[in-house]
């Protein structure tokens, strides 16, 4: 994998306050046991990279955090609110948690600006003018304010993913989930998206990132989590994780991903 991000020290914004607490969480798809006894505590301001072979359950795990997938056992508490079938809790959590998808999932029938203002206007009941102001501010931050009136179909993949990030940020979330944000991008566009994410990290956002970008993991993450076959196999600080992987499975994975 290409390390697209220039290594630079990132000050840690990690605090002692808990943002997400997952305890003994299990999930099944029909008969298939996808997630097995997941225990994970994420602190505010912490940046966690989740990696692992495909089918290891990493996407499913972060999708459980905003209830795109339902877990069947154990508990997930996000920002003090427990995820249950209570629709109010789910809505409350979704307002606090932003998500960026592998395939961007922008709304193709709306302009870039409308993509960004939709949720603030309809979920937060923000006046349209204010929402547009906020949206332009974030579009500036992801460096594509000039595309505001275009439709997603007219943008490149990298630009679309940056719009998707801006769209999430417009809801002013406390936590951002990234589900393989660069996997669907052409190689020359990966950097612009990773740079945006690094900026976000520098501002102290709590981030959970599923990615294969080990360069990003090395420079940005406070902690790397390695998952395999539905379990968290190992978690450690980046340096230790790459230098001294404890389990054989981690070693095998790292050798495959770093030397191909």
């Amino acid at each position, binding site marked *: 994998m290409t390390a697209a991000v220039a290594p630079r020290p990132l000050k840690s914004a990690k605090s002692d306050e808990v943002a997400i607490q997952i305890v003994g969480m299990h999930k099944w798809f029909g008969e298939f046991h996808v997630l097995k006894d997941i225990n994970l505590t994420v602190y505010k301001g912490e940046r966690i990279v989740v990696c692992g072979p495909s089918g290891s359950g990493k996407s499913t795990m972060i999708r459980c955090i*905003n*209830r*795109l997938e339902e877990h069947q056992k154990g508990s997930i508490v996000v920002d003090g609110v427990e995820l249950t079938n209570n*629709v109010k809790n789910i*809505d409350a959590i*979704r*307002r606090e*948690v*932003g*998500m960026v*998808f592998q*395939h961007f*999932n*922008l*709304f*193709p*029938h709306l302009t870039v600006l409308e993509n960004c203002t*939709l*949720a603030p206007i*309809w*979920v937060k009941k923000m006046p349209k003018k204010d929402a547009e102001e906020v949206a332009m501010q974030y579009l500036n931050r992801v460096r594509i304010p000039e595309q505001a009136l275009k*439709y*997603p*179909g*007219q943008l490149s993949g990298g630009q679309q993913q940056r719009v*998707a990030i801006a*769209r*999430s940020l417009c*809801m002013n979330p406390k936590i951002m989930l990234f589900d393989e944000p660069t996997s669907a991008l052409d190689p020359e566009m990966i950097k612009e998206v990773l740079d945006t994410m690094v900026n976000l990290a520098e501002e102290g956002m709590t981030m959970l990132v599923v990615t294969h970008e080990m360069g990003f993991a090395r420079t940005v993450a406070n902690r790397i989590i390695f998952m395999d076959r539905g379990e968290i196999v190992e978690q450690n600080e980046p340096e230790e994780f790459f230098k001294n992987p404890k389990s054989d499975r981690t070693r095998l994975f790292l050798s495959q991903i770093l030397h191909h």
Partner: protein
Amino acid sequence: MTTALDAGQKADLPPPAATVGVIGWLRENLFSSWFNALLTLFALWILYLSIPPLIQWALIDAIWTGSEAQDCKLPDGSRKEGACWIYIKAWIGGYAYGLYPYDLRWRVDLAAVLVIVMFAPLAIKRLPYKTVYGVAVILLYPVVAYMMFSGFVEFPPGAPEASTHPWRVVPTDKWGGLALTLLIASVGIIASLPLGILLALGRRSAMPIVSTFSVLFIELWRGVPLITVLFMSSVMLPLFLPEGVNFDKLLRALIGVTLFSAAYMAEVVRGGLQAIPKGQYEAAQALGLNYAKMMALIVLPQALRYVIPSIVNTFIGLFKDTTLVAIIGMFDLLGAIQLGNADPKWLGFAIEGYAFAALLYFVFCFSMSRYSLRLERKLHTGHKKT
């Protein structure tokens, strides 16, 4: 475009002459192979056989002036060669209003003018509160139109004013002609779309009662011919209603037509819903939109856009199917034309009547189809990969 070339870069050349222009087009589209050439010649031959006689009949030999059937006939009483358009001229009022009282036709005209006046502001691009106004007009206009058509002053039978008062009640069995056709078609169209959307959403619902009901409703109405529906509504339904309860025949027909086309519409909309990728739902949910907002703001606008051609297809079908109300004794456009064909003064000119009916139906259906194309182009946001 002329841009400076780098060393060794090849310049753009114009395409070979035989692939562009009129000759290029002809070769590409009409004579690309010997079989295509043969088909082209065959088509030209068919056109040669059919078009000139039609023009001869409808335009060159046609009779345009006069006022009586006699003007279209030879001295021996047989009809002249060309089309007798004065018959259409004489009956045009009958076609438009059917059996509606002659002295009250202005009320129908007023309703027609009002539809233009009330809906015209929607054409203004930057109208404030446009959506509110649009919904209000759609809800209000039917009431207004009903008042116009039906009138609101009732008299006991035999009262002298019962046949002269400008706002006297006209029962629905006197409504007719093109006015009735447009009324049934527009009520059917306007009511069946939202109903169809609800049924489509219901069919995909996770709640078993809702989805079962929707499936049953759709399959039941789709499985029965419209003619049967209309027949049931006019003949059977009154048998099941208690004595004294009677609702209007036109209303029953309207309900029948609406529910019938709603079932079709539901399947069309469902097709559009299936084309929306799962990611769109997930993105909407992740942003905190609830089910209603997700559907109204994200899913339906896209789904309906995909199926505009099929929606309009259903509308056009519905428009033409309204002629079936003739079966239950209502004189819509086609009924009025048949009424005219049976006019003893104008016997023998049914061809002109039917030709005119065909022309009118075509004009309406074709404009719907053009409008749908325009709408598609307007709503196209460059996300389709074409």
